[in-house]
């Protein structure tokens, strides 16, 4: 059994099912992100693991122990909240030492552990301050130290960075990841920010409507999204409807152009399937190794600095493509007709979802 095993978890609030048949195995020391739009049930899953909510069905095991019926204060889990939730009446050191004191750790030992934690988060000097004397980023780091101090079995973070400004968000996420790897602590990180999820995680769980749509390493989630939803939620993509002409050979027609996808299709002859294409996979003009050529009309050009994002209409579909900026090649004018070349294997075949 996995270190943290979530099995067929269900949660309903009254008549609404918020988490539906959610299963996830997390290995020891793994960093998992729950990624999904607002209201998809990420927080609810986290709160079920923490014990703040009781599942309607299913079970949660940590290190072989069934914790489904345990109270939050018996689970030995660390949690970091979006709103920091530091105790305002306690100093930073007292906050970090709170869990140790509750557990009855000897005073000297606890003080040493608090020191160690404050050094870990890079704030060794601030032990005597009160939370209201800290910046948001500092408060969240203290909250992390407080959660880690009692050596929890699992660390849960619910959008810990979303109350911070952009610069601190990026530096703190690297710091969190580094501390997590240093301690080797099993972690579930909730976010609705795909960049955060992709850059920090060992594996990402993309959630939608209380369901885990896809679980995989960031590379796969981005390059091989299993469903339309995942393709649409993670990164930018262009969606195409294509008609299967030869399922065994992987041949479809796409707006009149014949495309060899190079893989067996699970669809019948004549059926419509969904394809997705990332902006970086399409190339303006013809190029070696990109055998599929589509004809498109430039609808929009966004100059973004190092890259230029071009939107072209290919039949019904608005195809997005990225080209690198080069001083000697200005982007095509809006309204012009261009060739767009794509390597057929870069088309992503989506499940019906």
């Amino acid at each position, binding site marked *: 059994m996995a270190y943290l095993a979530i099995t067929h978890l269900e949660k309903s609030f009254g008549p609404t099912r918020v988490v539906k048949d959610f299963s996830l195995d997390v290995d020891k020391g793994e960093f998992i992100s729950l990624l999904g739009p607002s209201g998809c049930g990420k927080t609810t899953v986290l709160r079920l693991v923490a014990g703040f909510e009781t599942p309607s069905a299913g079970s949660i095991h940590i290190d072989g122990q069934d914790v489904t019926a345990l109270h*939050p*204060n018996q689970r030995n889990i660390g*949690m970091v909240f979006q709103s920091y939730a530091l*105790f305002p*009446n306690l100093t930073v050191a007292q906050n970090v030492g709170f869990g140790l004191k*509750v557990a009855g750790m000897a005073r000297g030992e606890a003080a040493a552990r608090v020191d160690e934690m404050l050094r870990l988060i890079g704030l060794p000097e601030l032990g005597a301050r009160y*939370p*209201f004397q800290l910046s948001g980023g500092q408060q969240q780091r203290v909250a992390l130290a407080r959660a880690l101090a009692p050596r929890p079995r699992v660390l849960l973070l619910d959008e810990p960075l979303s109350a911070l400004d952009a610069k601190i968000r990026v530096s703190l996420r690297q710091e969190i990841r580094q501390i997590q790897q240093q301690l080797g602590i099993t972690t579930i990180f909730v976010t609705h920010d795909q960049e955060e999820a992709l850059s920090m995680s060992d594996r990402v769980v993309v959630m939608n409507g209380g369901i885990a749509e896809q679980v995989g390493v960031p590379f796969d989630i981005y390059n091989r999204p299993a469903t339309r939803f995942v393709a649409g939620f993670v990164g930018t993509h262009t969606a195409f409807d294509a008609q299967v002409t030869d399922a065994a050979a992987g041949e479809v027609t796409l707006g009149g152009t014949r495309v060899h996808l190079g893989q067996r299709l699970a669809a019948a002859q004549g059926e419509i399937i969904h394809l997705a294409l990332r902006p970086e996979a399409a190339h303006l003009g013809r190029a070696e190794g990109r055998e599929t050529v589509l004809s498109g009309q430039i609808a929009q050009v966004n100059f973004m600095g190092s890259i230029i994002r071009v939107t072209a209409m290919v039949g019904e579909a608005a195809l997005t493509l990225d080209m690198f900026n080069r001083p000697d090649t200005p982007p095509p004018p809006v309204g012009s007709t261009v060739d767009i070349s794509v390597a057929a294997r870069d088309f992503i075949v989506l499940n019906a979802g």
Partner: protein
Amino acid sequence: MTDRPDTLEPELVSPAPTVPAPTAVAPRRRRVGPALSWVFFGLGMVYFALPLIGMFEFSLRKRRGTYSFDAYTSVLSDPQFQATFSYSVVMSLVTIVLGMALVLPAALWVRIRLPAMRPVVEFITLLPLVIPVIVIAFGYLRMFNTSSFLPMTGTATGTNILLAFGYATLALPYMYRAIDNGLRTLDVQTLTEAAQILGAGWFTILFRIMLPNVFTAILSGAFLTFSIVLGEYVFAALLDRPAFGPYMIWTGGNRAYEPAALAVIAFSITWGCMGLIQLAGRLFPHTRASR
């Protein structure tokens, strides 16, 4: 605020008990210059201070021809004053503990577990303001008289307990509001969860997290309760307990200068409490922190 004893001097029958009002008189600083604000503030101060000064001056005139503290010595050395005052102080402390033990967990519970019930609870806590004290007192007397199933009024201790419960009821609106205000500045739900996941039980959460954070709120609730109990008349009189309220009324009807001295003393105590609250706010800086 302490009820002032009735006196025969018309200049003394002035709205002295409305103490907190002066701040309301000072207008908001907008376009109006600060000078004008100060003028209004000064007027307000004069309005409230004059009767006080008058009362104080009067209380010093017990000895013919010169100012003296004779009225004060007479009051303070009156054994009945000492007895009733200490009785009421003890009763108010009991009431505060009782009320807090009732209100703090209730207010917390409503915030954490039954947020939908908040309006209902708020309404219930307001009832003592709406229902006249005399009704509550007679209700108690009917329920707990010597021929009832629970003859509380049969013994002095029983009656004292009954009185404390009565006082707690009277103080309920103020105490609940004070504590609820204190809790409002906290994210009670998340703080509770943060403490729970760190292994804390309800006892730790209540005494290490919630209580210290609402300490100033509790103090102001306690202070209000203290002044209510100190001046309360109806309950104590109907239950026939030797409390400070009835004593003040009695003095007011029977003496000339002592009631004024008593009022000044009661006032000083009230203001002293307010000062203590301010001090507490300074000593616990975190309670002033807000996001």
